[in-house]
């Protein structure tokens, strides 16, 4: 409490001094109190598999920034909370971070439902959330920066690749997903997109499975049946855990990537580390980053993570993946914005974020869009290798601007200007 008051007084003093001196650079240089930032990732429950690595990447990045002098000379002090894969608890913990801990910014959430749950809290209390995971779009909040991909930065280029000669010239599409908002919305967009490309209704099938589904015998048999009608590809939005039984069944039933490739939107290096990748060779994934990218920035990033995992004796797998890169980029961009604004106040940082650029591990210089709170990102298609890494077989020559409001969903026409 005392610390809070001091910080408050400090801020007030700084603002007064800033106005007096007509230049708040000097004023803030005096403030050496740490900046508190929140980390809101599930460390227990079903999502811990994916989210705990993001927490550790965030802590690693804070350590790196602190070691090089902090943000404007102020150290970052992380406040880590565990919302335990429980969606209402996400909102409670977010409220606690913003009102009790008074953090300047929160890095967190993975599933769309957890983001939807904390959104009203951030809007009510004017907090700032950095969301690092690819998602279905159809959302734009003043209080959120989205550092993962929007559908046009992942799903649509992936399908275009599959329809190209190199992708196998797919004619029939088996859309397979877990039954919740992200797969349903993505598939709605894809269906509209495929139709606009002249794919017939009969050549598209949508199939959903419950969370944690583990018996894919019937579905794989149906894929085979469907594949008899022409060059088929499976587009998988299966979530986390169910991927292992799905891919095992594919391998055991002898469905090879050269016959029916599976393009996945939620399978990255972290997920593959928990599987035997040999039967999966050749299956595909679409992301904005792969660990196998050979850029100097990435080599340093991967090494930093491997060293960190070793140093801390973490149980995480020492591999990097797309959401981890997005977390890393988000934290650095926030740091740059704070330094540009000379303040960690949400309203000032928000303005300073527009147009921020950062040399990302993906080998591209990413830019935060001036208006729509999404990153301009490159799109890459990777084929699974036997060692659980990806060969990048295709990538966009430049970064692509996000379209959070997909033009393939009716009613979004007026929102494209954002």
């Amino acid at each position, binding site marked *: 409490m005392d610390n809070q008051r001091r910080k408050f007084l400090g801020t007030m003093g700084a603002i007064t001094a800033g106005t007096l001196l007509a230049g708040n650079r000097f004023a803030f240089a005096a403030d050496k109190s740490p900046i508190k930032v929140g980390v809101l990732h599930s460390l227990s429950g079903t999502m*811990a598999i994916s989210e705990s690595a993001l927490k550790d990447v965030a802590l690693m990045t804070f350590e790196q920034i602190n070691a090089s002098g902090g943000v404007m000379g102020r150290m970052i002090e992380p406040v880590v909370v565990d919302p335990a894969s429980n969606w209402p608890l996400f909102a409670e913990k977010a409220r606690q971070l913003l009102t009790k801990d008074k953090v300047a910014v929160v890095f967190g959430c993975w599933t769309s439902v957890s983001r939807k749950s904390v959104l009203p809290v951030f809007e009510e209390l004017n907090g700032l959330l950095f969301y690092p995971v690819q998602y279905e779009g159809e959302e734009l909040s003043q209080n959120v920066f989205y550092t993962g991909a929007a559908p046009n930065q992942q799903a649509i280029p992936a399908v275009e690749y599959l329809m190209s000669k190199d992708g196998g010239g797919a004619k029939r599409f088996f859309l397979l997903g877990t039954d919740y908002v992200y797969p349903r919305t993505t598939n709605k967009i894809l269906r509209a997109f495929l139709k606009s490309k002249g794919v017939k209704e009969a050549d598209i099938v949508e199939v*959903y499975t419950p969370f944690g589904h583990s018996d894919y015998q019937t579905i794989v048999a149906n894929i085979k049946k469907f594949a008899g009608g022409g060059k088929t590809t499976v587009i998988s939005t299966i979530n986390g855990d169910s991927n292992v039984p799905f891919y095992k069944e594919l391998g055991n*039933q002898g469905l090879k990537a*050269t016959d029916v490739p599976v393009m996945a939107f939620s399978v990255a290096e972290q997920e593959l580390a928990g599987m035997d990748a040999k039967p999966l060779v050749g299956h595909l994934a679409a992301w904005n980053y792969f660990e196998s990218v050979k850029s100097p920035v990435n080599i340093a990033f991967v090494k930093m993570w491997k060293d960190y995992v070793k140093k801390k004796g973490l149980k995480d797998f020492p591999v990097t993946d797309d959401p981890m890169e997005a977390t890393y980029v988000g934290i650095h961009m926030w740091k740059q914005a704070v330094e540009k604004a000379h303040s960690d106040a949400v309203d000032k940082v928000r303005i300073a974020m527009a147009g921020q650029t950062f040399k990302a591990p993906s080998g591209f210089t990413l830019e935060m869009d001036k208006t729509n709170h999404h990153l301009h990102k490159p799109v890459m298609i990777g084929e699974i290798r036997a060692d659980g890494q990806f*060969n990048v077989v295709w990538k966009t020559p430049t970064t692509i601007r996000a379209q959070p409001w997909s033009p393939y969903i009716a009613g979004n026409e007026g929102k494209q200007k954002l």
Partner: protein
Amino acid sequence: MTRSAIYLCCIVLALLSLPARAALDAGQLSKLAADDNDAKVAVVKYLASHPSPEAEAVLTAMDNDALYQNQGRLLIVRGDQAIDAATLQALGPVPDSAESIIVNNRLRGAVQGALSAFKLFSSDLATRLKAARDVKQDPRPEQLPLIQQALAKETNAEIHQDLLLAQASIQISSSNEAERLAAVKILGATNNPEVRTKLADMLIQNNGQYNEASPVVRAAAQQALKSIDLRISLARAAASLFSGLSLGSVLLLAALGLAITYGVMGVINMAHGELLMVGAYATYFVQGWFKTHLPQHFDWYVLAALPIAFLAAAGVGMVMERLVIRRLYGRPLETLLATWGISLILIQLARVSFGAQNVDVANPSWLSGGIEIIQDVVLPWNRIIILGFSMAVLVFMSFLLSRTRLGLFMRAVTQNRAMAGALGVPTGTVDTLAFGLGAGIAGLGGVALSQISNVGPDMGQGYIVDSFMVVVLGGVGQIAGTVYAALGLGIVNKLLESWSGAVIAKIVVLVFIILFIQKRPQGLFALKGRSVD
């Protein structure tokens, strides 16, 4: 150096029987180093039509991601040694600047097609048979000359038949009517769904014109289609019955342990799923031990894991019984809460000691793949073996319960504790052992589940509902009821799933069970006479 020399000898020996040997054109090869996939596919087609040890070496390297380029020169990498791809000369250690040549799916398909066509000339019968199967499954027009050469000299009847089908599958698209007719006549014996589609296409009318102009060929196509469809539909029906039985056997393995702890002893054990998890992590542990200590016997780690998983889970179960459950007999509500607490503790314990992520439990080779009853209808080995395993566990358990002294004591204690005690049965010890047995069987279930599903701290949560469902539906206190309930639920679930999708199937099954329990609370089979309590 020596290793690469030996390798070279091997290739040369293996390929002595190849026809038409020609040196590789370096100009052609160098296109593989470029970024243009069309050119790469053209090179693979060139290699496919020029069989030679060099061509096979290059293609094999591409298939294994072992082809590299260094300043435009193609290298095959073996360990840390490089070989020149065009001449197969050893070049010494791999230079640091070498970059791997990326083979995407399209290229890999072409490479594998070419390799199988080469292998049609192997002197080893098994290799030839496998190559012929591959060619039959995925026939490519560029393979036609090699298939015809192989047909001319092949003596094995089975391989000959496969090659004929492969040839026909290519010639069905021929422009020569006689060739097409001959192809269609043979293709009644194929099970390849793509070929079936081609046959069906012939009979489609476009603007009053059949896609296939000749009525003779059309009649033959009709005939062929009929026999293919009959065979495929029979095989599919068999496969879906099998998948129902297989799901049932998984449910049975998950529920058998509970059939003892809950069914026979009456303990509502919410930590049952975590006992499955203990078994699965024990498998993971044994796998790791085999990897470091006995890598040459790695395939058999699953067998070694069985007793260890049984003992580990039984140990955890007995400790649970001694410390907590024993104090709560006769208070089901407290037992429920306490075991639920234990389950949370066990989950967190696994998370702290093995990490929150799932761990990788590999299938040994004898649990991978499957038998193909007809093309595209495959019964996976792991499911067949798990089906057998669940039956073995069942036999083991019923033997223990009905034929051993421990089983006799267990039944006596659960039927009339006071009387059993008065006759000198050590009821406390029997309780502990019985709970340990139930837990150990859950551990065995965990070994099986690790082969088809995830191994992670939360894995048990997914099975607890299913397990209770099976035991309650089968009738509490009835092992036989559990078996019928598990297999029945499996088959009903799979039938519903193929008819209405997985989500609806799950809902329908749950609703059905709720209604059934309303109507018949004692389950499918009720104990007659004086029941447990």
